[in-house]
């Protein structure tokens, strides 16, 4: 009597086990078939970004993995830079009180009269986007924010993505991990990644 009950339960268990294994394989297969499967990373679309400042505060890394980058071929090399200088600045020099960047991460170097080159020190930049806003409203919009993949740990769900008011973040194929401005952006094909529209 006892052994028959045990046999029956054993049989039931094996049957259930096989059914579960098949179901599991089916679910995994379906999930894999639906996706393209390649690896993806997070990136922000500079055209959507409104420079809310959350890139600096929401990233799980401190300082943020988002940094300002510069498309030099879009830049006007202006002596008075909307991204570098405080508005209504009197003296066009590198004095700290004239700078927009809270951490003085932008280097201003003279190229030739009257052009100045602006480069970002990514070790200092906190990704606040203040310069981006300045450059976008008073300049050519050559400064913009990007997730830097040498720093980003590629969270399963990017903390900034969920906080971004402009829905600027999306997953992009790891093969094309940047959404660049300027000539580089045109030559590098930008494919839709994780979340296709």
């Amino acid at each position, binding site marked *: 009597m006892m052994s028959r009950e045990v046999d029956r339960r054993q049989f039931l268990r094996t049957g259930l086990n096989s059914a579960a294994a098949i179901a599991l394989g089916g679910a*995994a297969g379906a999930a894999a078939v639906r996706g393209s499967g390649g*690896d993806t990373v997070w990136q922000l679309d500079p055209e959507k970004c*409104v420079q809310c400042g959350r890139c600096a505060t929401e990233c799980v890394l401190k300082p943020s993995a988002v940094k300002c980058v510069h498309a030099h071929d879009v830049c006007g090399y*202006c002596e008075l830079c909307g991204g570098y200088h405080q508005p209504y600045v009197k003296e066009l020099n590198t004095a700290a009180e004239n700078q927009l960047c809270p951490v003085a991460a932008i280097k201003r170097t003279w190229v030739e009269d*009257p052009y100045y080159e602006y480069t970002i020190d990514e070790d200092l930049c906190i990704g606040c986007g203040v310069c981006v806003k300045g450059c976008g409203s008073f*300049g050519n919009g050559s400064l913009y924010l990007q997730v830097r993949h040498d720093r980003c740990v590629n969270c*399963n769900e990017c903390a900034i993505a*969920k906080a971004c*008011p402009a829905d600027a973040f999306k997953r992009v194929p790891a093969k094309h991990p940047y959404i660049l401005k300027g000539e580089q952006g045109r030559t590098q094909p930008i494919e839709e*990644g994780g979340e296709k529209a």
Partner: protein
Amino acid sequence: MIRRAAAILAFLVATAIPSAAVERFPKPEFETGYTMPGTLTPPPRADILENLDVAVLAGAIALASWIVLKRRSRRETFWLMLFCLLYFGFWRKGCVCPVGSVQNVSLALADRSYVIPYAVVASFFLPLLAALFFGRTFCAAVCPLGAIQDIVLLRPLKVPSGIACILGMIPVVYLAASVVMAVTGSRFIICRYDPFVGFFRLGGPAYMMAAGALLLLLGTVIGRPYCRFICPYSVLLGWASKIARRHVTITPDECVQCRLCEESCPFGAILMPLPKKAPEPRVSGRRRLVLLFALLPVVAAASGWIGARVSAAWSRSHATVATAEAVLLEDRAGLEGVTIETETYRKSGLTRAALMQAADLVRDRYVVWGALAGVFVGLAFWARLYEFSVRRRRDDYVPDRETCVSCARCFEYCPKERQKDTGAEAGS
């Protein structure tokens, strides 16, 4: 000087144009042979390493299964666990882990447009497949979340089984909630409220670090509190383990009911022998079963209804719904752009109707998925009830396949195990 004045003039003119990304200033023509630097594009981690992670995961699970089932060695389990804690935890920063991959997989199944990397599918699938064959060997030594709790365990106290059983339902609710949040595209709450990933990254938001510290502190006296009373993946692993083909046994041989292992499990996963109850009259047993099955649709309907209601309220956590509601509030109060979200919406030029329609769509999805999740939770509760009412006789001390994490601690308490060990030594 003249060029400089011209530049400033151009600047003043340009400021009057409100739009971004226009070429207000022409590209300069350099005379000194200056070349423009390009934008550096440091690449992300290579695909190949992602595959390596999957291989290490598969290898570690296989090794763990072999160690607990064949080698029956706690010490080897411990070393493997330490390795996995370092590899998956501190080196790979605990992301993406099988626990969180539940969300990716459910989102991929619900939303065709979501692309899920193969590595994530594998990390969801492998531990469950292993559990179907060998029990929760993934939990024993591979999961970094389990490992970090396991190593802080100092002096386990017993959680009364009634309380443990009630708290043990939390993971079911958590699983249901996280699937609803994932498939509606709201957020991955398992990742957001993962208490230990902050330790792995050596830094994180204060709430995360505090929750993690609290759990680890609790974990010194209560074995693996996250695993037992929170982890949503443990539900699936537990069910798979319940019907596993093989599972660890406390004794390598035959149980002699010496009771030595009774208190050895820090997770309260050892079931004691149950004497057969005084034979119950058949009728009353049958009546109880009939009642139970009559209850089934009631439980399912009620929990489905609750799930739908709760989810409807919860839809506010979705960005679209939140923005839509905030915009309505602003309209009513005659304000504009109180939050960055509403300001961004107002600038985007999307019509009010389109926004409201999008919000309604999200709300509908919440209600449907909420109802399904509710039914799921209800069925899980019912199954627990069913289990209680059809207690079978049990002769030996056995691990509870659902909650046992195959940590291999209890083995050495068994006199038969020790006999085997000394026997082997004498033989060699």
